[in-house]
C-alpha cells in the first residue's frame, strides 16, 4: 500500500503531503506519525500541505487529530504552506483549525517550532 513519507530532521519530523489522499491513506498517516513520534522521540512535527488543492472536513479533522495526538505524545505540530484559496474555503466550510498551529512555509514553521520548544529546554538544563 502507498504511504506518505515521514522524514526526520534533527528533533523534528517533516511530512510533505504531495498527493490527493484518499481517506484510508490519511488515517494511515495519522497512525504512522504517532508511532514515529514515539520511536524517534521527536519534539516537533511539520506538515507541509502546500501541494494540497483542497482541504475538506475529513482532512481538516485529520490535521486536528494529528495535532492533538502529537501534543499528548509531547510533540508540537505546525501545519505549513496552506494555499490562500484553501484557507478561504476552509473558513467558509466552517472549519477554523483553531487548535492547529500554522505557518506560511517550512522555514517559518521550523522557526515557530524552535520558539515553542526553546523555553522548555532552558527549563530542563
Amino acid at each position, binding site marked *: 500500500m502507498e504511504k506518505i513519507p515521514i522524514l526526520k530532521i534533527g528533533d523534528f519530523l517533516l511530512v510533505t503531503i504531495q498527493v*490527493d489522499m*484518499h*481517506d*484510508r491513506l490519511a488515517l494511515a498517516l495519522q497512525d504512522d506519525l504517532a508511532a514515529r513520534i514515539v520511536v524517534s522521540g521527536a519534539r516537533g512535527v511539520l506538515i507541509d500541505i502546500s501541494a494540497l*488543492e*483542497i*482541504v*475538506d*472536513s*475529513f482532512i*481538516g*479533522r485529520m490535521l486536528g487529530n494529528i495535532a492533538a495526538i502529537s501534543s499528548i505524545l509531547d510533540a508540537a505540530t505546525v501545519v505549513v504552506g496552506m*494555499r*490562500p*484559496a*484553501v484557507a*478561504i*474555503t476552509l473558513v*467558509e*466550510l*466552517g*472549519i477554523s483549525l483553531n487548535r492547529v498551529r500554522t505557518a506560511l512555509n517550512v522555514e517559518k514553521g521550523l522557526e515557530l517550532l524552535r520558539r515553542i520548544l526553546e523555553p522548555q529546554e532552558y527549563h530542563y538544563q
Partner: protein
Amino acid sequence: MTEQPETLEIRSGQHLVFVRQAVRAKAEQLKLRLVDQTRIVTAASELARNTLEHGGGGMVTIQIVENGTHRGLRLKFEDKGPGIADIDLAMKEGYSTGTGLGLGLSGSKRLVNEFQISSRVGEGTEVTVIKWKS
C-alpha cells in the same frame, strides 16, 4: 450548446478522489476563478462522502450548464440509501450522525450558489448544487 454530462460512481474512498479530480477538471474547463474551483471541489468532496457514508454509495453527475448568459457547474449526487427523515435537522450546523464534524451539508451549501436537497425515507437522497461563473 449544452455539454455532455459526466457520471461517476461513488462506492469507495478511492472514488472520492476520482470525483474531486473530475470536478476540478470541469471547473478548469469552465475557467472558474481559482477560489471558486477550490470551493466547488471541496463541496464535491463533502457531498460525495455523504453519498458514500450515509447513502451507502451512489453516483454523481457533473455538467456544465447555462442560464442565459451565465455558465456554471452543476453537480447532482444521488443515492438509494435510507434517506433523511428531517432535512432541516440534517442541514443544521454541527449536526452529524456519522463520524464527521457535521459540516458536510451546511458547509457545502455555503460554498456554492445554488443548493437543493430532496430525500425520501427508505428511497434515497438527491443533492444538486451549482456554482455559477462570476
